[in-house]
């Protein structure tokens, strides 16, 4: 049963997954290119690290895009028949939703693995000083967790509110979040800032995004 759910999930999102996998594979390489100093100092860890601070946010953006589309595509397939098929299956609705959720979460592994491979490749090309360590696995895990969270959130919005409301709510959330970030950077004391802080401070839901996504660390 779950295998079939997984199969359909994969069928509906395979193009997206492929594109995302290419993206996440390329990102670590980009970090090495964008790092500057490449020609001067060879492939120095500092170059990768600097580059990563530029491309790191791309990973977060990718996580959100992937998370949202990974819900929207299967939801679209199901809502084509106004969920008649899903509702006529002989399993409780909660079980169906949980299986759909689980299937989506599993497909997240595809871009995660690509990121891991890409990171690993870049790390293998770096001349690492003995005092520093590379964390390709940990970075991939962070990406997975971040994407999972973005996925879970758009999943909630979509399944609770339907398609149009989900888009509206997501935009609203991002707006509030972005505004809060902007205000907090501008040192304004406002309620929005506090809300934003609640979201990104542990154990707030977005704390995984607030921690540092680094390929190289002490």
């Amino acid at each position, binding site marked *: *049963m779950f295998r*079939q759910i997984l*199969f*359909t999930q994969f*069928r*509906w999102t395979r193009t997206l997954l492929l594109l995302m996998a290419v993206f996440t594979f390329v990102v670590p390489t980009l970090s090495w290119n964008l790092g500057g100093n490449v020609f001067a100092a060879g492939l120095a860890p500092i170059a990768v690290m600097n580059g990563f601070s530029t491309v790191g946010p791309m990973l977060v953006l990718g996580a959100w895009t992937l998370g949202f589309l990974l819900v929207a595509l299967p939801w679209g397939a199901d809502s084509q028949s106004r969920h008649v098929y899903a509702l*006529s299956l002989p399993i409780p609705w909660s079980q169906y939703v949980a299986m759909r959720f689980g299937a989506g979460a599993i497909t997240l592994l595809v871009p995660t693995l690509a990121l891991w491979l890409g990171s690993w490749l870049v790390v293998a090309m770096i001349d690492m000083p003995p005092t520093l360590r590379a964390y390709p696995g940990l970075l991939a895990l962070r990406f997975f967790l971040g994407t999972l969270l973005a996925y879970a959130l758009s999943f909630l919005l979509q399944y609770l509110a339907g398609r149009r409301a989900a888009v509206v709510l997501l935009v609203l959330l991002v707006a509030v979040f972005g505004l809060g970030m902007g205000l907090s950077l501008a040192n304004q004391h406002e309620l929005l800032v506090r809300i934003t802080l609640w979201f990104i401070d542990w154990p707030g839901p977005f704390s995984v995004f607030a921690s540092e996504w680094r390929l190289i660390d002490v």
Partner: protein
Amino acid sequence: MSDAIKIRNLAWRAGRDFAIRDLAMTVPTGAIYGFLGPNGSGKTTTIRLMLGMQQASDGSIEVLGHSVPRQAHKALARIGYVPERLHLYQGLTVEESVRYHRAFFPTFDATEAERLRKRFGLREDALVAKLSKGEAGKLMMLLALSQRAELLVLDEPTDGLDPVIRREVLSALVEYVDGAKATVFISSHLVHEQERICDWIGVMDGGRLIAELPMQEFRSGIKRLRVHKAPVSRDATPFALLSRETPTQHLEEWVVRGWQPEMQEWFARVGAEVRDVQDLDLEESFVELLRGSRVATTTETR
């Protein structure tokens, strides 16, 4: 358990214009139940409520002994459902659709599915999105029949299909019913479709079940009478008068329900004479029944 479906006091409302009120329905096990009603009378909604896909505001529904919607998934495991519009995933092929469906229904019979697929002439690798309307209908029927379900719920299964495909689909259905001794609940606004197969008839109009009776009774009980010197009053008739028209000056045409030959005497008592008693076919009966119910409703509300 002698009733496959038992609905009591069902109530449901959508907006201001449409509501189902106080609906009671009984579908005996083993029956082929024709669920008639014009478009928009609430047939599909009733079916969705019956399968737990929507939540009634009041009343009780029991399907195959399971209370719906609480145990709807248990009932659904034993129900083959064909909705009025294609509900399958467009991006899958016929074969993938069968495999997907099979994974959920414990009693699914893969060999039967393969047999029906060949019989219906469906290609394994055809995309569902590319199927013609008739092929899509056949595929849905194939899935429902291969489930080996105890109850088939078919919502307008042949609506919009060409006669050849309709024949194929209905034949397969009839053969299945004889083999599996299943109960069939089949909704349609195409009356003569139901006429051949059904042994029970429920008629729905404006969110209400206006009649529910065995087919035989339905057909023999509704007659058109030509009445000479018809009485003005229509009170205290031993039958239900559905409509009354005056095509010529001396003759009136009455459509009555629950007619028995002995009732001629009533006319004699009031000084009238029944010149002719005509049988009506199902479609005419159905039309007269709707007309009668609508007249009754408007007089009620007046």
